[in-house]
């Protein structure tokens, strides 16, 4: 035993790592996200060629937008183990801020985007500081309250939100180019790809490990020097920033916003996207957003009998959440792993023995 150990000490870091990096190039995650974004950019072309219906393109744009919000919630729920019931409120705030700054003040797209990112995040940090000091579960309660207060605000403060009549906006001018429906779709796709890359960086470094350690055992995380409150706040502020961004993109794509959009149902739907897609999975989150938002819109509402029932999307996400939690706790990602896992394992075993 001792002899073996001394040899291990003297041995340098395994030399096969460089070779493995080369072999993994096609599996480079950044490349995957970029390719995914690029592939999405083709869709508006298909729409203008008449292959894809304009309404379908809109539905897909909302899938991308909700994916961004869900990505933030996945970081919060999947990594930090916290839950927020206020995603919709922060999204709505982002949307109205974007409209107010772009159209009422006239400061243009970038300032509007910045406002939609910074102000909800700031509010989120305050909510987090107040609630997370006590216990993790209070974040869910506090975020729900704040979201409901925001919803009432959206209805009442007419100079800011246009009240129940809604706020109208226009496609923004980005880099001097007047966007259209198609180019806004591209903007959403680019934003989603960037958010995927940022999220990847967050979860695959020191921060991600700290979040993992914290979720797994707060006591152990503290012993390793993780400032638990700080990392909970970080996760929540990233989630609110993503929600604000998603809200702004929603407004820019739809050119209008109504208070009824930003209710509890949307917050719950975002949670459903994360759970159905698979906790801690970046592509899974997008898949979850597609299933939860696009399937009712594109498929269910067009079915003969089912499509006539009002509130089909509600029933659909409710039933799906129950099914996923009962039978597929890892969501769509778990389903994919079930199929791909054995293949990948066989391949990596070959690599290990072959090296």
């Amino acid at each position: 035993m001792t002899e073996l150990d001394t040899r291990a000490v003297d041995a340098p870091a395994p030399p096969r790592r460089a070779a493995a990096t080369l072999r993994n190039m096609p599996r480079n995650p950044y490349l995957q996200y970029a390719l995914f974004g690029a592939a999405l950019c083709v869709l508006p072309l298909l729409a203008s060629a008449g292959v894809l219906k304009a309404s379908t393109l809109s539905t897909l744009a909302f899938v991308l937008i909700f994916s961004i919000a869900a990505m933030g919630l996945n970081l919060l729920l999947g990594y930090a183990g916290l839950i927020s019931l206020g995603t919709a409120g922060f999204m709505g705030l982002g949307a109205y801020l974007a409209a107010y700054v772009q159209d009422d003040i006239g400061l243009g797209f970038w300032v509007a985007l910045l406002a939609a990112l910074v102000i909800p995040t700031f509010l989120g940090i305050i909510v987090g500081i107040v609630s997370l000091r006590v216990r993790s579960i209070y974040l869910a309660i506090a975020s729900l309250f704040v979201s409901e207060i925001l919803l009432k605000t959206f209805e009442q403060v007419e100079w800011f939100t246009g009240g129940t009549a809604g706020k109208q906006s226009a496609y923004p001018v980005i880099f001097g180019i007047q966007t259209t429906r198609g180019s806004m779709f591209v903007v959403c796709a680019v934003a989603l790809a960037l958010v995927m890359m940022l999220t990847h960086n967050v979860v695959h470094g020191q921060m991600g490990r700290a979040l993992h350690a914290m979720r797994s055992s707060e006591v152990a995380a503290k012993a390793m020097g993780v400032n638990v409150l700080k990392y909970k706040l970080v996760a929540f502020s990233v989630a609110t920033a993503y929600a604000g961004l998603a809200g702004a993109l929603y407004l820019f794509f739809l050119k209008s916003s109504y208070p009824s959009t930003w209710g509890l149902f949307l917050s719950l739907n975002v949670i459903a996207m994360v759970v159905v897609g698979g906790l801690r999975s970046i592509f899974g989150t997008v898949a979850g957003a597609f299933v939860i938002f696009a399937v009712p819109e594109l498929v269910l509402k067009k079915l003969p009998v089912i499509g006539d029932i009002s509130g089909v999307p509600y029933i659909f996400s409710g039933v799906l959440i129950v099914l996923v939690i009962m039978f597929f706790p890892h969501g769509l990602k778990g389903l994919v792993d079930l199929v791909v896992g054995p293949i990948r394992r066989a391949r990596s075993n070959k690599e290990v023995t072959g090296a």
Partner: protein
Amino acid sequence: MSGTEALRIEHLSISFGGLKAVDDLSLTIYDREIFGLIGPNGAGKTTVFNCVTQFYRPDTGNVHFRVDAERLHRHGHKAAGAEEIDLVGRPVHTIIRYGLVRTFQNVEVVPELSVLDNVLVGGHIDFKATMAEQMLRLPRARREEKEYRAKAHEVLAFLGIDHLAGRPAGGQPYGVLKTVEMARTLMAEPRLIILDEPAAGLNDSETENLAETIRKIRDRYGCTVLLVEHDMRLVMGVCERICAISFGKFLALGTPAEIQANPLVQEAYLGAPGE
């Protein structure tokens, strides 16, 4: 025993709802010593330990810990030379910065992370890149990640489990998880490692190896080891000095042979003679 003091516990007391878990305990542990804290079930061993690492705030008493200037400087403290600090009242997550790291009785590793990533959690405090730098993968964040990854591999190789680095921690055998936890403490370049019942759940040969590993760690890292343990073979085999406590009170202090021969200790473990 001579040498510089590493840890000095003075008149430590803590009670829970009227029950004195630790009662006026004082002891000194010297630099590079392998020190054992033993006692029958419910003697307050783990409580002492939690008072040292500030998971519990003691009612009275001090925990003095000697920190070298270089380490204080690295974590942004101003200090002229080696300094003795009182740990009592400091936030739990700051304790590791002074070079005091612990393991857990029921191994606390993250099953979803790889063995290597679990070890890297131990290097948490050494990362200097800001959050923005990490989110954008700026050069400093990338360089640090690479540097500490190499260091984690080194530590794993030192403990003989580098071949498992890429495997998920969940599903590894118990003995391996214990080693992963040990590796995690080493990432922090500890001055004092506190091991909470490291032999619990290990078989005979694993316990044998553990004693070997503890000595090896002390020699290589030049650190002090405080062992809170139930397993008498391990304690008697590896510790240089042992302190026995019973019902939170100091009972005896000495070499393994002295402790084994001590009538008070025998009584505490086996009951009063003649019973």
